[in-house]
C-alpha cells in the first residue's frame, strides 16, 4: 500500500501526526495522546469566545471554498429558540482529493472532538456526519469511535459533565458527487434527491430541516481542537508570509508522482517542493506537464505555473488556478491532456443533478464533443464551440458543478492548444475507438 508514509521533514504535522498509529484510533489511545482536552477546554469557554479564537486563527474552510470558519460560525443566530444543526461534510468526492478519508480512518476521535467543539460553539445539539457511501472503511472506524465517545461521556446528554447535549449521527451517502455541495447534502440528509438549493436562504438562516445549520468539511473541523489547545496565535503563525492563508493543510497528491499521498504542509509552501520533493517527483525519464491543484474543479496549471506557485489560497489564484480542496492531480509528459479533460467532463456529466439546463445539457454535450475529438473526428470549430459552451455553463446555475466542468476545458484548450491540435490535425492517432 505504501501509505501512510513516514512524515517528510518538510511537513508540519498537526492533523496527520497520528496517521498510521493504530492505537490513536481508539478512545483510550486518543486520550493518551492528549485527545478530548480541547473539547473539555471548549466546554469551559463561552461559544462566542470559541468563535473569536477561530476567527483569530485565520482558519479557512478546507472543503474548497476557503471561507473563514469563525466567521461562518458567527452567522448562526443566537437565542432564536430553534434547534441548530452541525453537519460535517465527509462526502469527499472531488477527484484528486483523499485527505478526509485518512483523517477518519486514522484519527476518528480528532474529528469527533472537532465536531463536538463546533456543535457547542454554534448551539447545536445534533451533528450529522455525512460520509460518502463508498467510504466503507472510514464508516466502520467512525461508527466504532462514535460508540466509544458516547460510552466515555464525550458525546450524549451530558458531555463530560457539562450538562451540554451533543448527539452525533453518521449518515451514509449512496453515490452522488453533488452531495458534497452543502445544500445538496442537506437535501440528501432530509431524504431527498441531492439537488443543490437556491441561496438565499443561507444554511445559517434556514438549513437542514429548515433550521439554522453550519456545514464544515472534515479537515476544517479536525483542525479546531489543536487550535483551541494551542491557541490562535500559534495557528496563525503557521504561515509562510501570506497572512490570509494560515495553518497547516493536508495536500493530496496523486497521478504521476513517485510517492502519491497526503502531505501536511504549512500554507504558502512551494508547490515545486511538494511535487518534486515530498511527493517524490516524476517517474524516471518523465517530466512534469500539468497539475490540476484543487481537485478537478479548477483550471489546469502548466508545469511552469505549478512549479512557480505557492500552496495557499492566494498563491494558486495568482498562478491561474485555485486551491479548492487541495487535491493535486499531477500529469507527466506521458499524459494525454485532451483525454484527461474528456474523462473529467464525463465525470461531471455523470454527476450533474439534472436541475439546471446549462449543466444538465452542457456537461453531456461538451463530453460528446471531446469524445469526438478523441475519436479523430474533431472539427476545427469544435474548440471555439467548447469555449463558447463553457462560457455559457459558467456563473449561471444554482451550484458550481457546471462551472467546474468548464474550468478544466477552458484552461486546457488555452494552455495546451497543441494537444488538441494533434487530434484535430489527425497527427495523433485516435485515443477512442469509433463504434460502428
Amino acid at each position, binding site marked *: 500500500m505504501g*501509505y501512510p508514509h513516514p512524515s517528510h521533514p518538510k511537513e508540519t504535522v498537526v492533523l496527520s501526526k497520528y496517521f498510521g498509529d493504530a492505537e490513536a484510533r481508539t478512545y483510550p489511545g486518543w486520550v493518551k495522546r492528549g485527545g478530548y482536552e480541547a473539547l473539555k477546554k471548549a466546554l469551559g469557554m463561552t461559544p462566542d469566545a470559541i468563535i473569536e479564537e477561530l476567527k483569530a486563527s485565520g482558519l479557512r474552510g478546507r472543503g474548497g471554498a476557503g471561507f473563514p470558519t469563525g466567521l461562518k460560525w458567527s452567522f448562526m443566530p443566537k437565542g432564536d429558540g430553534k*434547534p441548530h444543526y452541525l453537519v460535517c461534510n465527509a462526502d469527499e468526492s472531488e477527484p484528486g*482529493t*483523499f485527505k478526509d478519508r485518512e483523517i477518519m480512518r486514522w484519527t476518528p476521535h480528532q474529528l469527533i472532538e472537532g465536531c463536538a467543539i463546533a456543535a457547542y460553539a454554534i448551539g447545536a445539539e445534533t451533528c450529522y456526519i455525512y460520509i*460518502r457511501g463508498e467510504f*466503507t472503511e472510514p464508516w466502520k472506524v467512525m461508527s466504532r469511535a462514535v460508540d466509544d465517545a458516547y460510552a466515555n461521556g464525550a458525546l450524549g446528554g451530558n458531555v463530560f459533565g457539562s450538562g451540554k447535549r451533543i448527539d452525533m449521527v453518521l449518515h451514509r451517502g449512496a453515490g*452522488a458527487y453533488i452531495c458534497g455541495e452543502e445544500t445538496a447534502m442537506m437535501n440528501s440528509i432530509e431524504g431527498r434527491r441531492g439537488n443543490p438549493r437556491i441561496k438565499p436562504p443561507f444554511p445559517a438562516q434556514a438549513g437542514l*430541516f429548515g433550521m439554522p445549520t453550519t456545514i464544515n468539511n472534515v479537515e476544517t473541523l479536525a483542525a479546531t481542537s489543536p487550535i483551541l489547545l494551542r491557541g490562535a496565535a500559534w495557528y496563525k503563525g503557521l504561515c509562510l508570509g501570506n497572512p490570509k492563508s494560515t495553518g497547516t493543510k493536508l495536500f493530496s497528491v496523486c497521478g504521476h508522482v513517485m510517492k502519491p499521498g497526503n502531505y501536511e504542509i504549512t500554507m504558502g509552501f512551494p508547490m515545486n517542493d511538494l511535487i518534486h520533493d515530498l511527493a517524490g517527483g516524476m517517474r524516471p525519464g518523465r517530466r512534469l506537464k500539468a497539475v490540476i491543484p484543487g481537485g478537478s474543479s479548477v483550471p489546469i496549471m502548466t508545469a511552469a505555473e505549478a512549479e512557480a506557485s505557492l500552496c495557499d489560497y492566494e498563491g494558486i489564484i495568482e498562478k491561474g488556478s485555485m486551491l479548492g480542496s487541495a487535491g493535486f492531480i499531477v500529469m507527466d509528459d506521458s499524459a494525454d491532456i485532451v483525454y484527461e479533460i474528456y474523462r473529467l467532463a464525463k*465525470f461531471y456529466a455523470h454527476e450533474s443533478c439534472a436541475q439546471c439546463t446549462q449543466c444538465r445539457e452542457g456537461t453531456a454535450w461538451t463530453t460528446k464533443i471531446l469524445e469526438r475529438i478523441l475519436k479523430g473526428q474533431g472539427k476545427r470549430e469544435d474548440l471555439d464551440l467548447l469555449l463558447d459552451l463553457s462560457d455559457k455553463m459558467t456563473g449561471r446555475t444554482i451550484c458550481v458543478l457546471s462551472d467546474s466542468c468548464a474550468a478544466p476545458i477552458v484552461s486546457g484548450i488555452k494552455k495546451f492548444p497543441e494537444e488538441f491540435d494533434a487530434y484535430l490535425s489527425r497527427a495523433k492517432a485516435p485515443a477512442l475507438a469509433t463504434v460502428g
Partner: protein
Amino acid sequence: MSAATHGSHAEAPYQPVFVGASREKLEALFPKYPTKQAVLLPALWIVQEGRGWIPPEGIAEVAAVLGLTPAYVRGVATFYTMYHLHPVGRHFIQVCGTSPCHLCGSDDVLHAILKETGCGELGATSPDGRFTVTEVECLGACGFATPVIIDDDFHDSVTPERVPGILARYP
C-alpha cells in the same frame, strides 16, 4: 464481510424486509432525525443489505414504512448510483475510472477484472452469477490508485497482477 452476497432472487415471492432485526434497525433510526423522510437513504440501504438489490416491492415497502409514495422513493433512489435497482451478481465490483486513477492505469485494472470475472462488459453479470462489474466515478482514494470496491470491501492500490488473488476471495 460481505453483506450484499445474494444471488438468485428472481422468482421467489417477495418477503418484507422490515421484520425482525431489520425492523429494529429501522426503528432505531427514527429518533435520530426530526422527520421520518430523513430515514429514506438509510432505509434503502437496509433493503439493499437484506436483498442484494432494491426490487420494486422494496421501494413500495420503504414508501409504506416512511409514509411516502413509491414514486417519490424511486425518484430519490435513482439519484444515487450505489442503489441497485436491478439484480446484480453475488459480488458487486466498482472500479474507479476518473482521471487520477486513469492516469495510473485504471483501464488495465478494469480490463483485467472484466476478463477474470468473465463479465465481458461493463454493467454485465458474469454467466455464473458471481460478479457484476461497473466502472464508477472517483472513489476518493486517488493516492492509492486503483481503488476497487467489492461488496463492502475497499481494496486500494489494485494492479492487474493483484486482480486474480483479490477475486479469489469472493466465491
